[in-house]
Every structure is written in C-alpha cells, then in structure tokens.
C-alpha cells in the first residue's frame, strides 16, 4: 500500500521560499490526505467492529485507500469520502473468496457490515463513528503498552508498518509481526460496537492518552526536558489528540494532552536556526513561536482547569505554558515551574520528571542547588544512557565552574545523541568551555574521563 508522508507546513521547511502554486498543490494534497485518513479510520472501525475481522477489513480497504491518496489531491475530495472508499472497497470484497469455513464466515460478516454501511450512507449520508471504541480496543490490557501507539496509528490513521517502525526505531519486519499479533488479540477480545463512553473499563481513556503521548514523543531527544525534538509523528499525534477531544470534549486530561502537544509543536520552527543549527529553548526567539497555536493551547488548558481535576498532562501543559510566558517577559517564572514539577513528581514520579525538576531548580536557586537535586535522583541505569540527563548535568556543572566534570558530561551527551543538530550544539558547548586549570573532579561526581586519551575504535 502506497502511503506518502504527511507534507509538513511551510514553517517546517525552514527559510526556503515556496511558490504559490506549490503551496496550493501542497494544501490540496494535505486536505485530500486528511479526508482520506479520516474516512479510512471511520470506515475501518465500523467494518472491523461489526465483522470482527480487522485484517480482512484492512485488506478490503487497502487498495481503495491507496487510490484515494492518489486521486483526491487532483480530483478533489468527494462529497462523502467514506462512501467513495466503501464503494471501491466493496468491489474488492466481492472479488476475494475465503478458503476455510471460519474465514468464509468472517468474510460474510464483513460483506454484511459493508452493506450496512452503504445503507447508513444512503439513509443519513454518514456512518456511526466508532473510532473512539477502536482506540479503546487498542489499549486493551492484553496489548503490550509499547504496541498501543503503533496500533492506533495504523488502525485509526492508516499509517503503514514501515513508517511506524522508523519512528519507533524498530525493524519494519518486527513491527509488522507485532502489529499482526496485536490485531489478533483485539479481534479475539472483540471490539465494543458502542462508542467509548458506555461500559468502558476504568482507566482506559488514560491508556489512550498515554499511547497518543507515546506517538508524539517517539524518537524524541529532550535536551532541556521541556523542548523535545518534534518527532516524525507529531502531526499524527496531534490529530489523534484532536479526535479524542472531539469525542470526549470535557475530559480535562484529554484537553491537557492536546494543550501540551500544541505548546511543544508551536516551537517547532524556532528550534532550528539558519543552516539547521539547534536552538535551545532559552535562546529561541519567541517571535518565531506559533502564537495562534499557543493561544489555542492556553484556552484548552483553561477549559481543562474548570473541571478541577488536575492530572499529569494538565501539569505538563502548565509547565509548557509557563515557558510560553516568555512571549511577554524575559525569564519564565522558575518558582512556578519548580512548584509544578513538584506536583508532577508527586503524581507521576519518574526519574525524567526529577531530572527536569533539577534543571528548573538550577535556574531558580543556582547551579549548585540544581546539581544537588540531580545527585538526589541517584542516576538509575535508565538515566545513564539518557542523553538529556548528561546534557543537563553538563550544563549545571559548567555553570557551577566544574569545567573538567562538565567536559566529561558533555562528551557523554554527545556520545548518546541521535539528532545531528543537537550533537553539533553540544560539541559547540564543549568547545566553549574555558580551559580547566584545576582538573579536580568535584566531590561525589564521576571522575572526568579525558577524551583524547581513549583513542580506540572510533571510525
């Protein structure tokens, strides 16, 4: 199945100039792709929920979806996109015969589901939107947490396994097999035919939100904890986030998650300077942030606050919001940020939250206080290979005047870095450190390892 990448916004193309015709073409493409994915998800959810055969429903829709992605950008989006896809898919359904009795029966129920859908379109011009139920099904307890986001991306948005595999740094064949196994589990458990709100097991909306967040965060490097690299799936995750807030409009955590993602995404263009160099949050020009997106995030967050049920995503969004204040003031309110991290840590304590808190403490009360907070985390095994930990530590050490230790920590961060722009930035920081006259390692810290002495095995 051919699935072109989502086209990025003009802002994402850096400073390159895009001609008007090219821009129109791009817009037409984006509109068509959006419609195709919307209707693909709706139709797949509908057919799979009623026939119980996800694979066959996907098969039936595959060609139809591919030709929609190909034709709609030129021909325009049909009046009822789902109906167009369904007509194309039904041809395929009639063509293929199933071999054994079980799949014969499933095939029959899929054909019946397609007929029902057709009848619904003729009656009302739309079909019931089961996508939320589908998303809940993707987070069933039998599905491994790390497979929930990939499943949603495939079933709700129709992304192919290879694309998903790339974003999650997994071999495509492995991702393909895992998706197949996970879909079997969903099929075995049965998908609720009623949309989400009824009889949903407690906590499953949380699992849906966590999976969307995982898609948004896939492949991120997060140098300062609050300014992650925008992943290749940011657009798709935002889309899923909007879908959930459309369907569960009053859930404060769903609103919080969308606000959080919009805040992070608003800084996308500002994170790269001319020639693609990485620009850390503190050095960004707020004028390059997407003001409209920040405003939307702020209003979502206010809406969420009315429910008076704070949660992890609202707190994270509030931290983003405090940083966005730099549109109007020089420094963010570090005391408020530290307080928010304290709440977040109490709610969802993780070494990463503690790390980000330490960075904020370092800003509020000075580098030695930040270092003390960092030491208090006690670097677990997971943090040892976590690039942001070493970058944060290096920055605190450098500002505390412990140049030798800072040098070693920067080197570790460089060695763990994936994003070449961030790697370049860290190497510049390393260069910018003053000559360390006294090479005494600070008490309680790892002794610095001088790089040039370990000149082995580096191509």
């Amino acid at each position, binding site marked *: 199945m051919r699935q072109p990448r989502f086209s990025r916004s003009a802002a994402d193309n850096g400073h390159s100039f895009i001609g008007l015709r090219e821009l129109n073409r791009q817009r037409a493409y984006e509109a068509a792709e959006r419609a195709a994915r919307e209707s693909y998800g709706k139709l797949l959810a509908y057919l799979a929920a009623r026939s119980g055969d996800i694979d066959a429903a996907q098969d039936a829709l595959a060609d139809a979806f591919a030709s929609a992605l190909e034709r709609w950008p030129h021909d325009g989006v049909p009046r009822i996109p789902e109906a167009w896809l369904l007509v194309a898919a039904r041809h395929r359904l009639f063509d293929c015969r199933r071999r054994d009795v079980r799949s014969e029966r499933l095939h029959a129920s899929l054909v019946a589901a397609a007929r029902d859908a057709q009848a619904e379109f003729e009656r009302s011009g739309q079909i019931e939107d089961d996508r939320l139920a589908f998303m809940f099904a993707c987070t069933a307890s039998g599905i491994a947490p790390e497979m929930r986001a990939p499943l949603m991306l495939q079933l709700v948005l129709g992304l192919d396994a290879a694309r998903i595999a790339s974003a999650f*740094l*997994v*071999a495509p064949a*492995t991702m393909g097999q895992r998706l197949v196994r996970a879909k079997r589990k969903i099929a075995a458990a049965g998908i609720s035919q009623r949309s989400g709100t009824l009889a949903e097991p407690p906590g499953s909306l949380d699992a849906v939100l966590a999976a969307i967040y995982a898609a948004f965060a896939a492949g991120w490097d997060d140098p300062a904890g609050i300014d992650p690299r925008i992943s290749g799936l940011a657009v798709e995750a935002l889309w899923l986030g909007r879908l959930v807030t459309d369907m569960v409009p009053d859930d404060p955590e769903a609103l919080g998650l969308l606000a959080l993602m919009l805040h992070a995404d608003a800084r996308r263009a500002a994170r790269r300077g001319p020639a693609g160099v990485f620009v850390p949050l503190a050095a960004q020009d707020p004028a390059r942030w997407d003001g409209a997106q920040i405003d939307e995030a702020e209003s979502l967050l206010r809406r969420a606050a009315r429910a008076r049920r704070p949660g992890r995503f609202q707190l994270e969004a509030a931290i983003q919001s405090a940083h966005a204040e730099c549109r109007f003031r020089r420094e963010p309110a570090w005391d408020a940020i530290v307080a928010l991290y304290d709440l977040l840590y109490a709610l969802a304590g993780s070494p990463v939250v503690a790390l980000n808190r330490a960075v904020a403490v370092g800003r509020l009360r000075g580098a030695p206080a930040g270092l003390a907070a960092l030491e208090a985390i006690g670097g677990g095994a997971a943090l*040892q*290979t976590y690039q942001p930990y070493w970058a944060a530590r290096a920055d605190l050490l450098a500002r505390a005047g412990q140049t030798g230790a800072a040098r070693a920590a920067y*080197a*570790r961060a*460089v*060695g*763990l*870095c*994936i*994003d*070449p722009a961030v*790697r*370049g930035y860290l*190497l510049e920081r*390393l260069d910018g450190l003053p000559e360390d006259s006294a090479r005494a390692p600070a008490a309680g810290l790892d002794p610095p*390892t001088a*790089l*040039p002495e*370990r*000149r*082995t*095995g*580096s*191509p």
Partner: protein
Amino acid sequence: MEFLFQLYNDETRWDRMTPEVSRHEIGAYLAYTEALREAGVYVGGNPLQATSTATTVRVKADGTSSVLDGPYADTKEQLGGYYLVDVPDREAALAWAARCPCASHGSVEVRPIMAIPSLV
C-alpha cells in the same frame, strides 16, 4: 547478543571538511565510543583506511586466483569502519546504531552475529 554495525559513508567527505568540522566529527566518534564503553556494550570497533588501499582476492573453481586493486564493490558509500556491540536484543542494537554519528551522515547497517557452536 552480538551485533556488527557496519558504517557506510562517502569517504571523500572527510577531505572536504574544514579542520574545525573534522575535529568535531572525530570528537563525536570518540564520544560515541566512550558512551558504548560506559554502557558496557562495547566489544570492539575500528575505522578502516580508505578503499583506495583495498585489495580484493578471489580464487576460482579451477584454482586460478585473481587479485584486484580496489574494493569489492564500487558504491557511492563505502564501508568506513565498524563496531561490534553486545546488547540484550535487536531493539537495543538499533537504539545504539541511531546514536552513531555515521547514522546522520551515511548509514549504519546492523547485522546480528551468527553464533557458531564450539567445535572443540
């Protein structure tokens, strides 16, 4: 589980670098090697000399041999070095491969080592 990372990139790019860029590049590789060591996954690794120094040997079925100057294959990206790592699984291998500087200016081929049962 051992994996070989084969680092492919355009070997001529080193000649085109300014001294500062090449210093950064070397620093990035040294730092990466150090990170592998600190994580306890490093088994070995080396850069290779340019493909112009390669010689390719082949012996045919009739016993005649051919020795040619140059690499086995003429490609845009050449094998420029390798790492051997020992990690729990393929996913961990891919995560480390993505961190290799070569992944952002060339590509890193990740291959599991085939375990051969001891013959003695």
